[in-house]
């Protein structure tokens, strides 16, 4: 690869203490993000997709243990940064957008001031320039009549407009990486399309990398260059979107793809994946998908499958990936 990755994460573990129990939320997640690349981190609830990102950003709270072999963003080792330094990287070099803008925006602060504050806090621009830039940002994310809207409060905005404000805050200091955690999940489909088209334009214009955390394969496959699938706190598959679509190799990925109800499914037999995800109260020592897997062999209940190369640029954590793909094509 010509460029070094922008972000490299190697063997991330995040465990929560709940009473006397340990919840093994993330169990050795590794991935990287190239400059300008959009990576879709896909999984169901409890897969660890959000916790992975929150752990890297130092945003997990409570009785929690985070261990990672390597977490490098540009030249920084994220594990060696102080809380202050990490706060500075977050918001300046890494922008973050969450699912629910209402809980991330300050309800008693004018939206324009919130965008300005992002720039002032990171000494990105002096006040006068920050004000002008806020108006430019509003235009860029599609908030019409910015000079008037600057003075509005979040509750005066619709869900879609609030998410645009969040985007303006996140990209205010021109981050090289934007982490978007289910940014359109709470929005209506027509608004989702608007936000994704704004995001795509931003990506193209700024050569910004995006990590899109989503449970929605439609969003991930249409927006991202590469897909990373998480199950029970582990990466089970990682591939360029074209390989992911043409030859998904992990039985879970295949099952999940087959579970998506799309227009035109009427009258068709549904094939939901049987059972439910594991409870995460023990560290994985075998394939965590085996109990639900139609291809499972005794080996799968004994031996933890590691993420391994399957094809160039395509990795999978399944003992039987080759047979699975040959069997079903």
């Amino acid at each position, binding site marked *: 690869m010509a460029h070094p990755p922008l972000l490299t994460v190697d063997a991330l573990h995040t465990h929560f203490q709940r009473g006397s129990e340990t919840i093994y939320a993330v169990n050795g997640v590794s991935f990287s993000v190239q400059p300008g690349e959009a990576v879709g981190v896909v999984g*169901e*609830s409890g897969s660890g997709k959000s916790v992975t990102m929150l752990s890297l950003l130092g945003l997990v709270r409570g009785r929690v243990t985070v261990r990672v072999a390597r977490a490098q963003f540009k030249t920084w080792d994220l594990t060696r940064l102080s809380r202050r330094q990490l706060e500075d990287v977050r918001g300046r070099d890494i922008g973050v957008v969450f699912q629910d803008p209402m809980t991330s925006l300050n309800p008693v602060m004018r939206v324009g001031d919130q965008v300005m504050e992002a720039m002032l806090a990171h000494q990105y621009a002096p006040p006068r320039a920050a004000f002008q830039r806020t108006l430019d940002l509003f235009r860029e994310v*599609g908030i019409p009549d910015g000079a008037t809207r600057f003075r509005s409060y979040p509750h005066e905005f*619709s*869900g*879609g*407009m609030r998410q645009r404000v969040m985007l303006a805050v996140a990209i205010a200091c021109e981050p090289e990486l934007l982490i978007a955690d289910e940014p359109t999940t709470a929005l*209506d*489909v*027509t*608004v*989702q*399309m*608007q936000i*994704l*088209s704004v995001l*795509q334009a931003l990506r193209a214009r700024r050569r910004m990398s995006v990590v899109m955390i989503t*449970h*929605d*394969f*439609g*969003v991930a*496959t*249409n*927006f991202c260059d590469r897909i990373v699938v998480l199950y029970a706190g582990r990466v089970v598959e990682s591939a*360029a*979107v*074209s390989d992911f*679509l*043409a030859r998904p190799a992990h039985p879970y990925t295949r*099952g*999940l*793809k087959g*579970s*998506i*109800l*799309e*227009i*035109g*499914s*009427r009258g068709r037999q*549904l*094939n*939901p*994946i049987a059972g*439910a995800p594991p409870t995460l109260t023990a560290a994985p020592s075998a394939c965590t998908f085996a109990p639900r897997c139609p291809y499972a062999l005794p080996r799968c209940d004994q031996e933890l499958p590691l993420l391994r190369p399957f094809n160039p640029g395509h990795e999978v954590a399944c003992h039987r990936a080759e047979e699975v793909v040959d069997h079903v094509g």
Partner: protein
Amino acid sequence: MSAEAPILSVDEISKDFVVNRRVLHAVRQVSLTVPVGRTVGLVGESGSGKSTVGRLAIGLLPATGGRVVFQDHDLSRLSAKAMRSLRHAMQIIFQDPQASLSPRMTAGAAVYDAMAIHRLGTAKERWARIEMLWERVGLPRSIGTAYPFELSGGQLQRVGIARALALNPQLVVCDEPVSALDVSIQLQIIQLLKTLQEDLGLSYLFISHNLAVVEYLSDTVVVMYLGEVVETAPVEALFERPSHPYTRLLIDSILRVPATGASRQPLTAPGGEMPSPFAPPVGCAFHSRCPLAVDRCRQEVPTLRVIDPEHWVKCHLAD
């Protein structure tokens, strides 16, 4: 469609809310009928009024105008007592089963309670019925002693369904019952709802913003925008020949998983925001977002008119 009288007919129903001394016309002259044993899908975005219609349809909210007839009963004319005796026949399941179950009650107690309130059977009969219901909704018997916090989203929704079924309903309003669930669990619940309908002859008013789910389950689809019905048709006609520009916008906005990397959808969206429901546009309510709007649309309110058998559209330009 059969000649049998529909189980539910909603006739020109309206609902106004007063919010901060301003009147919000949340639902404006909506009509729909649910035939016995069928499913009517009600779709629209947030603020379209679809959930309000669901609540009006089973008398959980009083209407401002129009009427709801369930079987032969005009709900607005029923006494409180008569309404109570009818209520068991009209049940509702919600998007968030956690919020609709008491955190201090076991799953078994929640279902028992529903039957006790409606004085259905003896205590012994109720517990026997609960055992039967767990099996019906695909839960193990041990679920009865579990508290909501111990259950997954899919299990909670099954408990919610069991509680609705406990009262032997004939009509069930399903208000976004799978929207909060993971995709693999969504399919399990959809399958369950379909099986229950076939086995028990239930009629559904199925409210969702998810068009694929609505297409899968519904016989007829009603599309709402800003409190009004803009299109209604048998399910095949609606998806094969969507005739209102808003219906088309909704369908085109769905991101499908493409077959190959080369067939990805362009991420472009027409501008325009949902107008304030306090001040809907004059003329056609959709004209401010409509790519086809002409002068007439900005002045004259279109009427809901028939363009094909049972296919109604509220648009000047549809044909």
